[in-house]
């Protein structure tokens, strides 16, 4: 009998065999391990970019110049944004995609595992190049993350390093996107039709198409910058007949779909959490799918609302204003679907649900300030003020980042096999959302009062709101140490999680044991 048990153990061991440390973490082609690497990388970048945000907020604690000189301040705002966009949010969602897509569609792995490994390992090198630009003469790029020409035609070698880093990040995310599309279109379990796919899979599929449509355009724009700087072309340099405004058009042709790349997967995560804790199926599944596709389509025809003040014909301004406002229709469909899912549900408020409700509420606030910015004549007042800063932090932090935090708590038991500490999770939610609002809500008022963004100093009448904002920022930053503590503690131990983890959750990922074994769905599951 003991012999039989040993043989059984051995068989299980073979089935779930993990390679040694170096091979496992550096040469991995396993979707779960690469997902973990992406998530760790994203969290690390969140802290790097967050530290830069705290330098900004420390300097803005009071008027005058206290800690850093204005040029370094500009480097902080620029690199903070580049790190958060390309280092924290995008890789974070790719991490979720790697972990969850194969589990959700019943596939054994991603379709292109070696490319998966490659697309991850490009990232540390890209960000090493970007961050080491702080140590070259003139310091890091200081032009704002948009890298507007003609300013970036003049910058030092750090601009070239930034361009190379962006090329690498672009290649990484394009490969990630191709991998997602091929996986989703080819590797779904038999019986899982497109309209049976979980929402997170749908949102990522659409995001992946956005990525391969616009990342190459951005790569082209920075390549033009590079050749303008060194190889005698004049795309953007008026001295040679170029046009700086052209750069803004090309950049925002990429830049606006980019903001949906950063939010659509968050919508997907929310669409999993809310039905689970409302104990009702997602309301209006097919309208959710079509709304996501509509948002993606509209994202291509609204770019110039970022540049209303460059001097456009009235017809152009009206077109971009109406097109932008049109986006609130599919977005509103989503928000109402989430609220209707909760309506008369048997709701409980575990940490992931708190995050999901927080995202629905706060993201919608960000959407509302976005509508205000879309009004062309009003935008002339708000353009490049702290109102814009408040707006995009409401959609990117309390939209994208908080959705990822909620998703992390939601799937952490599946990833680690342990339940996280629920009380600490709830404390983390309340600390994060309260400090977030203390940080960014006053920035609406600062912007309406006329405080411009990207300056190291400000007139004395803006002091009080800035102090609220700086106080909140340090609270928000420090609260994230608790997030790391909860994750580390959950990885190390805690109450054993069941396969289902939550009460009757929907989805194939809850049919595999917790923690999810190294290999899953070697035999495709049966879809009813």
């Amino acid at each position, binding site marked *: 009998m003991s012999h039989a048990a040993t043989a059984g153990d051995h068989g299980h061991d073979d089935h779930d065999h993990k390679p040694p440390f170096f091979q496992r973490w550096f040469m991995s082609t396993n979707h779960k391990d690469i997902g973990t690497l992406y998530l760790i990388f994203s969290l690390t970048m969140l802290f790097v970019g967050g530290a830069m945000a705290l330098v900004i907020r420390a300097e803005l604690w009071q008027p005058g110049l206290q800690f850093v000189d204005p040029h370094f301040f500009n480097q902080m705002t620029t690199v903070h944004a580049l790190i958060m966009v390309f280092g924290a949010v995008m890789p974070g969602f790719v991490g979720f995609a790697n972990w969850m897509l194969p589990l959700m569609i019943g596939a054994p792995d991603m379709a292109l595992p070696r490319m998966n490994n490659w697309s991850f390992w490009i990232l540390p090198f890209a960000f090493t190049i970007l961050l080491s630009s702080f140590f070259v003469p003139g310091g890091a790029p200081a032009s704002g993350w948009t890298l507007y020409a003609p300013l970036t035609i003049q910058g030092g070698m750090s601009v070239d390093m930034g361009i190379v880093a962006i090329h690498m990040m672009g290649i990484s995310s*394009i490969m990630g996107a191709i991998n997602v599309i091929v996986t989703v279109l080819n590797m779904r379990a038999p019986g899982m039709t497109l309209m049976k796919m979980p929402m997170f899979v749908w949102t990522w599929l659409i995001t992946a198409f956005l990525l391969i449509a616009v990342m190459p355009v951005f790569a*082209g724009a920075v390549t033009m910058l590079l050749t303008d700087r060194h190889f005698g072309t004049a795309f953007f340099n*008026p*001295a040679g007949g170029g046009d700086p405004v052209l750069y803004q*058009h*090309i950049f925002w042709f990429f830049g606006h779909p980019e903001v949906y790349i950063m939010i659509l997967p968050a919508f997907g995560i929310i669409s999993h959490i809310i039905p689970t804790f409302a104990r009702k199926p997602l309301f209006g599944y097919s309208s959710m799918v079509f709304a996501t596709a509509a948002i993606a389509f509209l994202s291509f025809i609204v770019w110039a609302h970022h540049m209303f003040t460059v*001097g456009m014909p009235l017809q152009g301004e009206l077109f971009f204003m109406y097109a932008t406002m049109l986006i609130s229709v599919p977005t509103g469909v989503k928000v109402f679907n989430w609220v209707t899912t909760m309506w008369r549900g048997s709701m409980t408020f575990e940490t992931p649900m708190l995050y999901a409700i927080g995202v629905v509420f706060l993201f919608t606030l960000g959407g509302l300030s976005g509508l205000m910015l879309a009004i062309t004549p009003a935008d002339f007042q708000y353009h490049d003020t702290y109102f814009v800063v408040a707006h995009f932090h409401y959609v990117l932090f309390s939209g994208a980042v908080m959705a990822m935090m909620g998703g992390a708590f939601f799937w952490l038991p599946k990833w680690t096999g342990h339940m996280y500490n629920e009380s600490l999770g709830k404390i983390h939610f309340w600390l994060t959302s309260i400090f977030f609002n203390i940080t960014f809500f006053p920035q609406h008022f600062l912007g309406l009062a006329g405080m411009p963004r990207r300056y190291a100093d400000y007139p004395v009448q803006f002091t009080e709101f800035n102090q609220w904002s700086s106080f909140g920022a340090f609270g928000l930053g420090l609260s994230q140490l608790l997030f790391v503590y909860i994750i580390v503690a959950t990885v190390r131990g805690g109450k054993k999680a069941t396969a289902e983890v939550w009460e009757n959750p929907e989805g194939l990922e809850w049919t595999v044991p917790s923690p999810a074994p190294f290999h899953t769905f070697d035999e495709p599951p049966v879809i009813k």
Partner: protein
Amino acid sequence: MNNLVGKLVVITVIMFGFGYALVPLYEAFCKVTGFGGKTDIIEEAAANSAEIIDRDVAVTFTSHTNSNLPWEFKPITRGLNVKVGDVQEAIFYVKNYSDRPITGMATFNVTPPRAGFHFKKTECFCFSKQVLLPGEEKEMAVRFLLDSEMPDDVHELTLSYTFFDNEKYAGQ
């Protein structure tokens, strides 16, 4: 499956090319619509035979010099009252204060931008590069007319020039 990967790679390459295609598209868009205050060109003969309409538009001339270019550049003709269809000439003054010959190139635009398309030049110093020897000074002309399509509510417009150092692009 490999077929799908191939298609996606092709889309990626096409979109990279599309970024570059936006450059001529933008150029064509500005030319057709006058977007950005682009002006148009007209043949001297056609300009002289244009019908003159008794409608005055006040045209102001302004000039800027890029900080990299050690030139002085200013309009001698500050402003003109122009009848629609009448060919007029404005004179600009330029001097090279450096001790080396420099090639300069002027860019221009018209405000309000919607008037740009109906601002037609027969001849302009901005059509070609200007080379000034050390200390050289000269007067340069722009000949133009306002065509009959000029929007009725435009009563005044500004033609602005900026001179740039073009040495970097001298070989082209």
